[in-house]
């Protein structure tokens, strides 16, 4: 219902205050990326400079952490997309013994506190004598990424009728064509949304990472370490700003893509 009445002033102020509370701290992060003061977060900043961008550019540790984070997030998202979609398809398409249990077990890791998942994985890795590496981080992240994909996909599978696959086969499409022209367009947007969420979750994950990483430093771990160091503090802010901008763009893009989702027709066009 759309009302033509004006909202009361008090409500407007409350709404503005709420939005400011949410977004002002982020703006502060941006401002500190340009400050001339490098040892403490002094307000107001004594001066503004662009030199921290050059400094950040020249820091190999930033590049290494960024590269590792991107690798971990993409690989664990891909693994989660494969496993999560298959699992969702199985649970929603067929009936078998223990189906509800499997559904619960898949969702459980996201309900567990990250610290439990972390400790459990760490002791499991040492029991099995698996050396810590990028792959142990990826395994840790995949546990919660799978849940996100699974939840998105299972909801979409349940909404789309099973006879669609029969109909496609009936009209002459083999298994691959049915997947390409019917299943994928129907679950595609759900997978995209789930994949983005999984990527974002993995990209800024700290707790599970601290337990499953050896000497490797992902970007959020690097930031955490950097905060206790009194030198070149604004470099952290520059990195934070770049991360915000870089993650914001795909989210914006995906928003426009899924908003148009009704018309994603799986046809060559």
């Amino acid at each position, binding site marked *: 219902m759309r009302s033509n009445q004006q909202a009361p002033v008090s409500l407007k102020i409350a709404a503005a205050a709420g939005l400011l509370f949410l977004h002002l701290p982020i703006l502060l992060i941006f401002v500190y990326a340009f400050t001339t003061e490098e040892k403490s977060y002094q307000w107001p900043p004594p001066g503004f400079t662009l030199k921290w961008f050059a400094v950040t550019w020249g820091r190999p540790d930033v590049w290494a952490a960024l590269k590792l984070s991107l690798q971990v997030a993409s690989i664990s998202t891909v693994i989660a997309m494969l496993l999560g979609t298959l699992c969702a398809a199985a649970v929603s398409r067929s009936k078998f013994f223990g189906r509800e249990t499997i559904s619960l077990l898949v969702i459980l890791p996201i309900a567990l506190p990250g610290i439990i998942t972390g400790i459990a994985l760490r002791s499991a890795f040492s029991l099995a004598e698996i050396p810590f590496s990028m792959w142990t981080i990826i395994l840790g992240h995949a546990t919660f990424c799978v849940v996100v994909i699974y939840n998105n996909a299972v909801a979409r599978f349940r909404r789309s009728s099973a006879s669609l696959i029969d109909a496609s086969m009936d009209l*002459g499409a083999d298994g691959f064509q049915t997947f390409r022209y019917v299943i994928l367009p129907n679950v595609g947007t759900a997978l995209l949304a789930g994949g983005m969420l999984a990527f974002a979750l993995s990209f800024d994950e700290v707790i599970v990472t601290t337990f499953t990483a050896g000497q490797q430093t992902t970007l959020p771990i690097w930031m955490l370490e950097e905060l206790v160091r009194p030198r070149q503090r604004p470099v952290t802010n520059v990195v934070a700003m770049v991360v915000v901008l870089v993650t914001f763009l795909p989210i914006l893009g995906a928003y426009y893509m899924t908003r148009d989702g009704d018309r994603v027709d799986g046809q060559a066009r």
Partner: protein
Amino acid sequence: MTISVQFSGVCRFYGDVKAVDTVDLSIQEGEFFAMLGPSGSGKTTCLRLIAGFEQPSAGHIEIFGETAELVPPYRRHVNTVFQDYALFPHLNILDNVAYGLMIRGIKKAERYAEAEQALDLVQLPGYGARKPSELSGGQRQRVALARALVNKPRVLLLDEPLGALDLKLREQMQDELKSLQKVLGITFIFVTHDQGEALSMADRIAIFNQGKVVQVGSPEDIYQRPDTRFVADFVGSSNVIPADFADKTNTAGQWASLRPEAVRLVDSGGRTAVVISRSYLGAMTRLVLDINGIRLNALSPSNQALPADGEQIQVDWDSADVRLMDSST
């Protein structure tokens, strides 16, 4: 006459459940064939066996003389109109109808032209740009029909296609399907649990009960001359009465059927009956009668003088209208 679909001793078991039990059928080319039966009687499973979604556990299926077993659904010249229509929600109507042609690699302009023609055929011209969700149930049903017919199947399977429509629309679609089948001249195999639908549309009807075909025949055969009690009960509202009661010359222990409209009110010389209730059905009125403890339905034209409830009357019927039945089922 070419046989389009031939079932020889076809069975389909799910564990211990015999969904289809030793079915023999031959369906002629160009025939409007109905499979009629209560839910769970195996008629839909038979349809899915023809479409190729199910494989027979035993027996043999031929479609136009070719063995159908192990031929996947996408290689059969058979198309289906699904009960829930199964339109692709992500495609518009034109792309839905053109789907089969797109799969076969037919060029865009050509397949869209054919899809438009198919939409004309089902009286939905100009609906191509809409989405399935923007159409009514009856319109979706027509789209499902167009989507199947555009592939020029040799056999069209229809799984309770009118089940979700309201009465008026259902009657209209019955007429349209019937005339469409005449125009196209292809085999229609139609699954329904509605005996009125089967009787009014089909050239021949197979009655299913518990996985078996209990009778195959023309609508007149099925209606006038049911072979078994089940058929008499299921198709319409026939009276099932002891044979020796229906006609004194019959032996006791058998059952006979008697159509309600065959029961006449007479002035004298008939059997004495008490009117238990009457219901006005428009042109006809249904009388429920009691003759020495046996219930009998009678249909009488409403324009004649009808007895009141509780009144004693005389009724009679011709022995030719009594149909003796197989007592086993």
